C-alpha cells in the first residue's frame, strides 16, 4: 500500500512539473501574441500575418503618399521645394525646401530623433519673430490643413495667401518626413511582399508605384499567396485575407491625385518565400516553430493535467489507509480541531506565497523581469497547489474518519449554544429564534437593492425553509396526538415510527414508546400473575382434596368395622371430626382466596332481597328450632330489588345465619330485618352471643379470627371474611356491630328499580 502511494505521489509530482512546464512554455510562446496566436495551421491564415501584412501595406501606402511629397523620381530629395512663404521683415520671401524646414526646425527647437519621431516644442523663436508667415505657394501634395493649426490663424479673406504658423508647418513637415523614413525602412528591404499601385489615364498606365518593376500586373497576379487586389472596375475588394480593407481602399480612391480614370492596386505576399531574409519569411518560420511548440505544449499540458487528476483522485481515495481494508489512520495534524487546522494551512500557504515573491525580488534579474512575473506566479501557484493538496488530503482523511464535522469548533460551539438555550427558558429561546428570523428577513430586504436576484432567492429559500420547519412541527404534533389517543384507548401494542418525526417531537415519541411498552409489559405481567394465581388456587386445592378424600373414606370405613373398644371409637370419632374440619377449611380457603382476590365471576341479576331472606329463613327454620332460637322478622311486603349474584348473596346470608346457629345463645330471639333506606336496601340480623365477645368488630372479619371460643366448634374462621368480601364484590357494604353480648351484622346494598313480572 505504501509503495503504491509513493508511486502515486511521484507520478503526481511529475504531472505537476509537466503541467507547470507546459504552461510556462506555452505562456512564453504565446507571449505578446495572445492565446489564439497559434490557432491556425498556417501562418498565413493567422492574425499575426494579417497584422504583418497590414503594417507592410500601411508602410507602402505611407511611402507612396509621402514619397509624392519628398521624392523626386522615386528618390528622396531633401532639396525639393515644398512651400514659398513670405516672412515679411524677418526673412522675406523664401522658397523652403525640406532641408530648409529641417534647418528652421532646429532653430526653433524641433528635430527628428533616432526613431524618426518629432521631438521638441518648437517655440524657441528668435526675438521679434512672430513665427508666422504668409503662405504664397505650397506643393499640392503638402496636405496641410490650415484649420488644424495649433495656433489661431486669422483667415484673411481676399488675400491670395493664408497666414501660417512656421512652427506648426515645420512640425507637420518633420512629422511627415519621420513617417517617410519609417516607411522607407520597412519597404526598402528585400521582401516577399510585392506591391503595385498604378494610376492610369486614357493613354495607358503612367504612374506606377511598385517594388517589382520587372514584373507586370499579370505576372504579379499569378503569384500564389495572400493578396489584396482592387481596380476601378471592381465593385469591391478582392482578397483572400480576412481583414477589413476598406480604409486602404478608401484612401486609394481618395488619393487618386492624378485624377485618373483607371487605377489598380495589388499587394501580395509570395508564399513560396523566394527571399529568405525578409520579415515575412522569418515570421513564417517563427510561426511554424511556435505552432509546433504550441501543439506540443498543449498536448503535454493535457497529458499532464490528466495525469494530475488521476493521481489526485487516487491519492484522495487511498488517503488515510495504511493497509488494504484497514482503518483510517490520522496524522497528528489531522487530529487537531477543524478550524485551527484550516487556519494553519491557510497561514502556511500565505507565508510561502509571500516568501516566494520576496525570494524572486531579492534575486532580481532585470533581463527577464517581465517574464519573471509569470514565472513567479507559476512558482507561487505550484507551491500553493502542493500545500493545498496536502491540506486537502488531511481534510479528506478527516471526513473519512468522520471527525471533520465532529471535531469542528463550530459544531461544538453550536452544541454548547444549544445546551445553553435548552437550559434556558424555552420561551426565551422561542423569542430569540423569532428575532433571528426577523433579522434575516430584514437583512434580505436591505440587500434587495443591490443584490436583487440573490436576495430574492435567499428570501424564498430561507422563508420556505422556516415554513417547512413550522409545518413539520405541526404535522409531528398531529402524529403524536393520534398516537396518544390510541395508547389512551388501550392499544398497548402501538409504537410510534420514530423516523417520521423530528427534534423534540422525535424525543417525545421515543419516550411515549417506552412508556407504552412499559405499560404493555406490566399489563402482560399482571395478566400472567392473575392466571398463575387462579391456577395456583385450583391446583393446590385439588392436590389437597385428593389425599383428604382417602382420609375421610378410610375413617368412614373404620367406623363401619365392628369395634368394641370405647377408646378406639373415641379416637376414630376425633379423626372423623378433624378430617371433616379439614374439608370445610379447604373449601373455605379456596372460596376466601377467590373472594378476596376478586377472582370470581359474578352473575349479576336483579333479585329481590325480600324473597332471598324468605328463602333463607325457610332453609334455617329447623336449625333455629333445634337450637331454640326464635326468629323475629321485620320485612316489607313489596319486593326490594338489588343487583347482585343470587348464589353469592345466599352464601353471605347462609354464613351469617350459620354463625347465629353456631354462636348464638340458646333460647333467645334473633331479629331479622329488611328495609329500604334512601337509595339502599338494608338487611340486618341481630342475636345474643353464646360466648363472650372480647374482640373488636373489625378484627372479627379478619381472616382466621374467631371469638374466644372453645376448640370444638366447626368454624374455620374464614366465614365472616368471605361474607364481607362477597358483599363488597357485589358493590355492597358489610358491617359488624358488637355491644356486650349483642352481635349485629348488616348488609347494605344499593337499590335498583324493580323489573315488572318475571
Amino acid at each position, binding site marked *: 500500500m505504501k509503495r503504491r502511494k509513493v508511486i502515486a505521489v511521484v507520478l503526481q509530482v511529475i504531472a505537476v512539473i509537466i503541467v507547470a512546464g507546459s504552461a510556462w512554455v506555452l505562456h512564453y510562446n504565446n507571449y505578446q501574441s495572445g492565446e489564439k496566436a497559434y490557432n491556425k495551421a498556417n501562418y498565413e491564415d493567422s492574425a499575426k500575418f494579417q497584422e504583418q501584412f497590414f503594417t507592410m501595406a500601411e508602410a507602402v501606402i505611407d511611402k507612396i503618399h509621402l514619397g509624392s511629397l519628398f521624392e523626386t523620381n522615386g528618390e528622396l530629395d531633401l532639396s525639393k521645394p515644398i512651400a514659398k512663404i513670405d516672412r515679411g521683415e524677418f526673412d522675406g520671401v523664401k522658397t523652403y525646401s525640406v532641408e530648409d524646414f529641417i534647418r528652421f526646425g532646429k532653430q526653433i527647437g524641433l528635430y527628428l530623433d533616432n526613431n524618426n519621431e518629432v521631438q521638441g516644442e518648437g517655440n524657441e523663436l528668435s526675438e521679434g519673430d512672430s513665427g508666422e508667415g504668409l503662405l504664397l505657394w505650397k506643393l499640392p501634395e503638402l496636405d496641410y490643413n490650415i484649420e488644424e493649426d495649433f495656433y489661431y490663424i486669422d483667415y484673411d479673406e481676399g488675400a491670395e495667401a493664408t497666414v501660417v504658423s512656421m512652427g506648426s508647418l515645420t512640425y507637420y513637415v518633420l512629422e511627415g518626413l519621420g513617417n517617410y523614413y519609417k516607411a522607407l525602412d520597412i519597404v526598402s528591404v528585400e521582401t516577399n511582399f510585392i506591391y503595385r499601385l498604378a494610376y492610369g489615364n486614357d493613354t495607358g498606365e503612367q504612374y506606377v508605384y511598385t517594388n517589382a518593376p520587372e514584373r507586370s500586373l499579370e505576372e504579379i497576379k499569378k503569384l500564389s499567396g495572400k493578396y489584396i487586389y482592387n481596380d476601378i472596375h471592381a465593385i469591391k475588394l478582392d482578397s483572400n485575407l480576412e481583414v477589413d480593407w476598406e480604409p486602404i481602399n478608401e484612401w486609394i480612391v481618395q488619393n487618386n491625385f492624378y485624377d485618373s480614370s483607371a487605377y489598380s492596386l495589388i499587394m501580395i505576399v509570395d508564399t513560396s518565400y523566394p527571399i529568405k531574409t525578409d520579415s515575412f519569411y522569418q515570421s513564417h518560420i517563427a510561426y511554424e516553430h511556435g505552432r509546433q511548440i504550441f501543439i506540443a505544449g498543449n498536448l503535454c499540458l493535457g497529458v499532464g493535467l490528466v495525469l494530475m487528476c488521476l493521481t489526485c483522485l487516487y491519492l484522495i481515495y487511498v488517503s488515510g489507509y495504511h493497509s488494504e481494508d484497514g482503518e483510517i489512520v490520522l496524522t497528528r495534524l489531522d487530529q487537531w480541531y477543524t478550524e485551527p487546522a484550516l487556519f494553519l494551512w491557510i497561514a502556511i500557504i500565505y507565508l510561502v506565497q509571500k516568501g516566494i515573491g520576496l525570494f524572486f525580488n531579492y534575486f532580481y534579474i532585470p533581463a527577464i523581469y517581465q517574464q519573471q512575473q509569470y514565472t513567479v506566479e507559476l512558482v507561487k501557484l505550484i507551491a500553493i497547489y502542493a500545500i493545498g493538496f496536502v491540506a486537502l488530503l488531511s481534510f479528506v482523511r478527516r471526513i473519512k474518519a468522520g471527525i471533520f464535522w465532529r471535531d469542528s469548533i463550530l459544531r461544538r460551539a453550536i452544541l454548547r449554544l444549544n445546551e445553553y438555550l435548552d437550559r434556558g427558558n424555552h420561551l426565551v429561546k422561542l423569542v430569540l429564534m423569532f428575532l433571528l428570523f426577523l433579522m434575516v428577513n430584514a437583512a434580505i430586504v436591505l440587500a434587495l437593492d443591490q443584490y436583487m436576484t440573490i436576495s430574492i432567492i435567499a428570501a424564498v429559500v430561507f422563508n420556505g425553509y422556516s415554513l417547512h420547519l413550522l409545518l413539520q412541527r405541526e404535522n409531528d404534533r398531529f402524529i403524536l396526538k393520534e398516537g396518544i389517543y390510541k395508547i389512551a384507548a388501550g392499544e398497548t401494542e402501538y409504537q410510534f415510527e420514530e423516523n417520521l418525526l423530528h427534534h423534540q417531537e422525535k424525543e417525545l415519541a421515543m419516550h411515549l414508546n417506552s412508556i407504552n411498552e412499559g405499560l404493555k409489559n406490566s399489563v402482560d405481567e399482571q395478566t400472567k400473575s392473575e392466571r398463575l394465581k387462579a391456577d395456583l388456587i*385450583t391446583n393446590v*386445592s*385439588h392436590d389437597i*382434596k*385428593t389425599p*383428604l*378424600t*382417602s*382420609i*375421610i*373414606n*378410610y375413617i*368412614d*370405613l373404620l367406623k363401619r368395622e365392628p369395634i368394641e373398644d370405647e377408646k378406639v371409637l373415641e379416637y376414630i370419632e376425633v379423626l372423623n371430626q378433624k378430617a371433616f374440619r379439614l*374439608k370445610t377449611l379447604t*373449601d373455605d380457603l379456596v372460596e376466601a382466596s377467590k373472594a378476596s382476590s376478586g377472582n370470581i365471576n359474578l352473575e349479576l*341479576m336483579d*333479585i*329481590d*332481597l*325480600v*324473597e*332471598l*331472606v*324468605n*328463602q*333463607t*329463613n*325457610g*332453609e334455617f*327454620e*329447623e336449625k333455629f328450632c333445634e337450637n331454640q332460637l326464635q326468629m323475629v*322478622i321485620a*320485612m*316489607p*311486603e313489596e319486593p326490594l330489588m*338489588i343487583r*347482585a349474584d*343470587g*348464589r353469592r*348473596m*345466599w352464601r353471605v346470608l347462609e354464613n351469617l345465619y350459620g354463625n347465629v346457629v353456631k354462636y348464638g345463645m340458646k333460647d333467645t330471639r334473633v331479629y331479622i330485618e329488611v328495609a329500604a333506606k334512601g337509595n339502599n336496601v338494608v338487611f340486618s340480623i341481630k342475636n345474643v352471643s353464646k360466648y363472650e365477645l372480647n374482640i373488636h368488630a373489625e378484627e372479627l372479619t379478619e381472616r382466621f379470627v374467631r371469638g374466644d371460643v372453645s376448640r370444638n366448634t366447626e368454624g374455620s374462621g374464614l366465614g365472616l371474611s368471605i361474607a364481607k368480601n362477597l358483599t363488597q364484590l357485589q358493590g355492597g357494604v358489610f358491617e359488624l356491630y358488637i355491644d356486650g353480648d349483642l352481635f349485629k351484622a348488616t348488609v347494605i346494598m344499593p337499590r335498583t328499580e324493580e323489573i315488572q313480572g*318475571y
Partner: protein
Amino acid sequence: MFRILVCDDDKQIVEAISIYLTSEGYEVLKAYDGEEALSVLEEQEEIHLLIIDVMMPKLDGIRATLKIRETKSIPIIILSAKSEDTDKILGLNIGADDYMTKPFNPLELTARVKSQLRRYIELGNKNEKTENLYYTGGLCIDDERKEVIVDGELVRMTPIEYSILLLLTKNAGRVFSINQIYEEIWKEEAVGADNTIAVHIRHIREKIEINAKEPKYLKVVWGVGYKVEKLN
C-alpha cells in the same frame, strides 16, 4: 348382579369405593387410568355403570368419557376433586350422568349409584302413559294417582308439598317466586312475608333429593324463587 367399573389413579380411593360397593352387593372391577378403563370395557362382560376420575395419566376422565359415549350408553358418574362449576358443566355436557366432588360422602355415592342403575333399568321398562304424567329426569309425578316417584321409588308427600312440587314440575325450568307459588296453591293474594313456602320447599328437597345440599331437581334461585330443573 350389577357390575361396576371404578377408575381412579389413586389406588386407595379405588379400594375404598370398591369396599362400599361390594358391601352393597355389586361386583366391582378396577382400573387405574383411562386407557385401562377403555380396555376393560371392551374385553370384559357387560358392565352396567362406570365411576371415573378426571385427573388421570395416559387418558383423562373427560376424554375417556367422550370415547365411551361413542359406543355405550351406560351410566357414568364422574368423581373428581375439581369442584368448579365449569368442571361440573363440562363433565355433564360431555356425557356423564352425574358428577360428584371429592371428598365425597360414601353413602351419597352409593345412593347415586343405585339411582343411576334404577334409571338405566327403568328406561327399558318405560310405560306408555303420557297424560297426567309429568317427569323430569328421574322425577316422575303421576297426577292421576297423586304419586311422586323418584328413580323408581315412591316418595311420600304432604298435600301442600305435592301441590308445590307438581306446580314446579309441570312448569319444569320456570322459576316461581314464593308469592307466585302461594297464589297458585291457595288461590289468594300473598299477604305479608311468609317463609312457610320456603320451609315446605326445604322438606320436599329433603325427601326427593339424594343430597339436599346439592339438589338435582328442585333448585333454589336465590333472590328470585324456586324451580324444578328440566332434565330429559
